[in-house]
């Protein structure tokens, strides 16, 4: 079974790479990802994992949600249909809601201070920018 463990480790590593290439290609931030610790998953923390789960559910239930919302939030259709729409909306899991998704830093999972375009926290962003890893980003001077 040693082969499976090595294989699983390899797969783990490769999947980790797949998910976090953006981070890995940045040489300045290797100390943020600890590669020598045993891991259950390859997320920085569980909050990041849960956020990812919510995003997936959001994508999955998006059409259902739009339709149910349309049926609920209108005064054109009879109230019986509107009630049915409300019930459909309530049946959808809560994690499929857009409001539950939080834009976190892709490396450190920081919930606040995110630079949206790069999906990084300001601290990480700044360190990468200083090492010249962000294209077109330069220290402001005027």
């Amino acid at each position, binding site marked *: 079974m040693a*082969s*499976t463990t090595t*294989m*699983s480790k*390899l*797969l783990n590593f*490769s999947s980790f*790479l*797949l998910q976090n*290439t953006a981070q*890995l*290609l940045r040489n300045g931030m290797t100390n943020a990802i600890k590669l020598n610790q045993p891991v259950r998953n390859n997320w920085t923390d569980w909050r990041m994992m849960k956020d990812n789960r919510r995003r997936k559910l959001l994508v999955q239930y998006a*059409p259902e949600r739009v*339709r149910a919302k*349309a*049926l609920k939030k*209108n005064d*054109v*259709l*009879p109230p*019986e*249909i509107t009630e*049915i729409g409300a019930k459909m909306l309530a049946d959808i899991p809560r994690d499929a809601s857009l409001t539950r998704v939080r834009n976190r830093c892709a490396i450190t999972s920081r919930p606040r201070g995110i630079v949206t375009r790069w999906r990084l926290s300001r601290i990480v962003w700044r360190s990468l920018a200083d090492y010249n890893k962000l294209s077109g980003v330069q220290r402001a001077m005027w």
Partner: protein
Amino acid sequence: MATSIRNTKMLLRRAFSVKRNETLARNLCFTRTLNANEDQDDSKKVVAEKKNKAELREAKQKEAKAKLNMLLESMSKTTSKAFPSESTLSLATPKIRAKPAKPVKRTAVNTKIEPEMLQAVEDVSNMLSKEKEASKNSLIAKLEAVADESERARLEPFKPNKQKTEDLNSLLNTLKVDGKKPKNKPPAPKLAPVKVEDIYGAQPSGIFSKAHFKEESSAVSGLATWDMLYERELELAVTHPPANGFQQMIRWTKQGKVWQFPIDNEQGLDEEAQVGFHEHVFLEPHLKPWCPRRGPVRHFMELVVVGLSKNPYLTVAQKKEHINWFRDFFEAKRSILIDTGAIPDITTKSSPSIST
């Protein structure tokens, strides 16, 4: 038991008291003699002293002995008083059960030789010779001798017998193998090559015509994780996942997943680019077959269509699917719509009017 202890204590006390008395007496007689010696002559005094001492000692000893004897007698008396030989209590007695009859022991039990050996000896003697008893006895004697020797050898430490070792060495020397290489084995007998002219010419032998091949029992193994890992291992054996980020990027570039520069927002959406805008905007024909021309349902669906026409993010297929979903939903809730009056009830109307 308690009384005896008490008696011994008393004895000891009395002995001590005797001793004390003795010492007292000694002191007494000494002082007496001292006082006496002042008056009498020296020689007389010495003899008198000695006599007195001896007499006193004897008397004291006798007294002590008498007392001891008395004590011992009293002890025996007290013990004789004590308890009756048999208890007066009525205790529960166990039931006397007849013991199972023991198997009759064989007279000829030999401890040196194992019973199996004995049985073998008996069989052999019965089979071979006529004088069964004599042969049996001789065999048993020999076996016993061997057993004795082995016992002795076991107990004594091993001393190498020089004579025996010499014999053994000479024997081994004679048996030494010569320095020649071993001969090759004679070649295995070769079968004559089978001449096959036509493989499919012969009639089928029909060996397996009546065979009932059982299907492999596909019992559900409760090792889900192991099965998953096994499948994963198989996949990994066939595929070669990238070992590093560079390999991954190369792979993606080849697959066309990587952005091309200058960035084109519609990269990868070639099929969608071929679809004309009229299909995105003019969606009313999709409503035509099923949607009623008047009523709240129509109103709602018109709003939906307007929204979709303004949506650049969905494909035409997705928009169609959206409309079809609503169609199916209203079909399912038809009864409710009729009850509420949203849909005109067709069945009740007898003649169609021009206005609708």
